[in-house]
């Protein structure tokens, strides 16, 4: 008996994953429970365990491939099956054969194929087998319903696609196939669609063509697929840039007291980072200025009671923003422990999708790179993001004296659609005040 190796469902919104690597090769013996392959969502990388013990066979996906959730990408043959398998040709390959009609129905009903007992010709799963499963599973009514909707329904999926000439033209023009809108039969992308897309991309003056129309003589040093996390970040950044009305306010904060507070905490055994201190500051400031702790949901602005702050983390795979939950309810030591663990998981690519969504505000810190001030992009659907520059001794006028003080530039980008300049400025002013006088955090 062969067991299908399925791509696991990760979170409710994840339809496809990227296969990162196989830990075993075809023909290797695997043990149930050991890591078999790694997948990457747009936000995290996870190991998937072998669902059974046996010999790995029938790999259908390679590292880098996009794989659909709940699709089978390999099989594990039970050890007893492997030697001397002499069944029909359909079985030799150890694949599950299923009629197109049965596959449609199983996918519509979200039934894993290996759960279905095949009775069709040459051991294939056919429609009646899926219906038998549905009936057993008590899904009789839904089965009948889907049969009816099938007969009267629209054309089945998978018949759109792209014509060969359109594909070639799109590739030559460097167009992303996913960005093309098909107007051919059943939504197929045809030559005219590609021509239109090329014409549009030439018309747009601010957007350079993705690839030079003049063939370059030299080869690129590296060709990086614009997919996965990179494409996702690109989409979000472009959306943020084009859909919000971003305004960045900057203010210099005298962080001398904050530096001293951190030193004292460390001396007393509580090691915290500036980010932790700033999270603590933000929690108080956001509680007082809830219009900055909001997100846009279609026609409504949601003002969040809880303060969940995303922390921008630079990782090898790209920018990730794990979220620290309910910051206002936590003490500094707890925040420090949580952020450290989150950052480590993010850098190892092991954050779960749930850890990477649902923030209400974002903190991004480029101080460690010697950046003084910048204009961060809002992490949609949030309303604002605080960018922190380096803390550095700078000449500061106090009274009539120029003295050296540890200062930092804070850059608040807010979405002017959702909040006006005044409230945003007052919020930043409060953040600066709390950073300069951290004793007020206790007030």
């Amino acid at each position, binding site marked *: 008996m062969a067991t299908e190796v399925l791509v696991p469902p990760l979170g409710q919104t994840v339809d496809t994953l990227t296969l990162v690597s196989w830990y075993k090769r075809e023909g290797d013996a695997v043990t149930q429970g050991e890591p078999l392959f790694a997948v990457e969502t747009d936000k995290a990388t996870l190991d998937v365990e072998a669902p059974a013990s046996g010999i790995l066979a029938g790999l259908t996906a390679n590292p880098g491939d996009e794989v659909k959730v709940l699709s089978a990408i390999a099989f594990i043959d039970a050890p007893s099956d492997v030697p001397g398998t002499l069944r029909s040709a359909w079985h030799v390959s150890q694949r599950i054969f299923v009629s*197109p*009609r049965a596959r449609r129905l199983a996918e519509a009903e979200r039934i894993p194929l290996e759960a279905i007992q095949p009775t*069709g*010709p040459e051991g294939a799963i056919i*429609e009646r087998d899926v219906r038998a499963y549905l009936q057993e599973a008590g899904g009789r009514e839904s089965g009948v319903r889907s049969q009816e909707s*099938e007969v009267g329904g629209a054309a089945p999926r998978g018949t759109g696609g792209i014509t060969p000439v359109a594909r070639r033209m799109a590739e030559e023009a460097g167009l992303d196939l996913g960005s093309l809108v098909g107007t051919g039969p059943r939504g197929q992308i045809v030559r005219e669609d590609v021509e239109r897309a090329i014409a549009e991309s030439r018309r747009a003056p601010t957007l350079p063509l993705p690839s030079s129309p003049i063939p370059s003589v030299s080869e690129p040093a590296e060709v990086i697929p614009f997919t996965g996390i990179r494409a996702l970040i690109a989409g979000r950044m472009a959306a943020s840039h084009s859909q919000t009305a971003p305004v960045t306010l900057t203010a210099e904060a005298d962080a001398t007291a904050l530096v001293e507070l951190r030193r004292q905490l460390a001396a007393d055994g509580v090691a915290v980072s500036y980010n932790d201190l700033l999270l603590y500051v933000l929690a108080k400031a956001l509680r007082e200025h809830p219009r900055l702790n909001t997100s846009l949901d279609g026609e409504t602005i949601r003002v969040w009671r809880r303060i969940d702050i995303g922390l921008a983390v630079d990782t090898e795979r790209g920018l990730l923003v794990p979220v620290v939950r309910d910051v206002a309810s936590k003490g500094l030591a707890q925040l420090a422990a949580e952020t450290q663990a989150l950052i480590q998981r993010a850098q190892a690519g092991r954050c779960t999708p749930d850890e990477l969504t649902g923030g209400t505000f974002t903190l991004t810190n480029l101080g460690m790179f010697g950046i003084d001030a910048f204009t961060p992009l809002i992490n949609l659907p949030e309303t604002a993001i605080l960018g922190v520059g380096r803390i550095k001794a700078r000449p500061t006028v106090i009274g009539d004296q120029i003295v050296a003080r540890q200062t930092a530039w804070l850059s608040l980008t807010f979405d002017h659609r959702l909040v006006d300049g005044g409230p945003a400025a007052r919020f930043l002013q409060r953040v600066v005040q709390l950073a300069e006088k951290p004793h007020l955090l206790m007030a």
Partner: protein
Amino acid sequence: MPQMTIAEALRQAIREEMRRDERVFCIGEDIGIPGGFGGAFTVTLGLSDEFGHERILDTPISELGLTGIAVGAAVAGLRPIADVQYADFLFLAMDQLANEAAKMTYMSGGTVKVPLVMRAPVGATARGAQHAQSLEAFFCHIPGLKVVAPATAYDAKGLLKSAVRDDNPVIVFEHKLLYGSKGPRTEKGALSPVGDVPDEEYLVPIGKGIVRRACPEHSRREGKGVTIVGKLLTMYRALAAAEMLAKDGIEAEVIDPRTLVPLDKELILESVRKTGRLVIVEEDNLTGGWAGEIAAIVAEEAFFWLDAPIKRVSAPDVPPPFAPVMEQFYVPSAERVVAAVKALF
């Protein structure tokens, strides 16, 4: 309502069209000679009595010649009904049909019309390899020709009348075992279906198929349905197979396309979407055949509705044999259709 054989229905269609339109005439070999059979299968019997030998025109035995005359007459404004005694002889007239009749309208930018009807009997009937072929696929492959294949008396009359009135060349394939020819032209083993044929005027539109036997809703819901497509004789084989299958709980929907070009493919696709299985039965041999075209259409346009591979039941890739026992083996039988269908369950 009068009951007629296909030969009688065709004769009535010709008579009605010749009375209706004086441009209509018949041309062929031995179709009107005194004491003759009325063509090879009695279709034109007696017509020369009413219309005379100028409109029931006998020619020497030269298919290329008579077809050339017919094409020329059609281009010049007449509406000829030409026939060959056996469809096999269409090969002799191929240049006129494929290079002239089919292409003139296109080559003239639509200014020349070729309202030609070419009738041709097909099917293996113990007459050997050169009088037995089913040539439908050859002509379906030539753009510019319409191809019809009536299997009942009603359709024979209605389709022939539509063909006469069509401005394009139309090849009408008739099956020797279905004519119901009488007297010395009675075919051994003929089915000779007799059917209701209204006396009044009616047309069967070119391009419309028909469901000859429906698969009941409950059978298809239980996954016990199959679509069988057959034309001419094989439509009757499909019907016979359907009766045998019904005893085993399998309900076949039998589709008779009636017109092969232009094909009523939606009728077939609709049926396959319901039943999930398709078997195509034809008397021609397998390779490069018409059944393969139907299979390709369904694979392209209804793949995700299929619950089993598409199956073709055809003659083997050899010329039709002369020996009756071998011919029986050669022509797809109802039993072969039953076996093909059962392999899909």
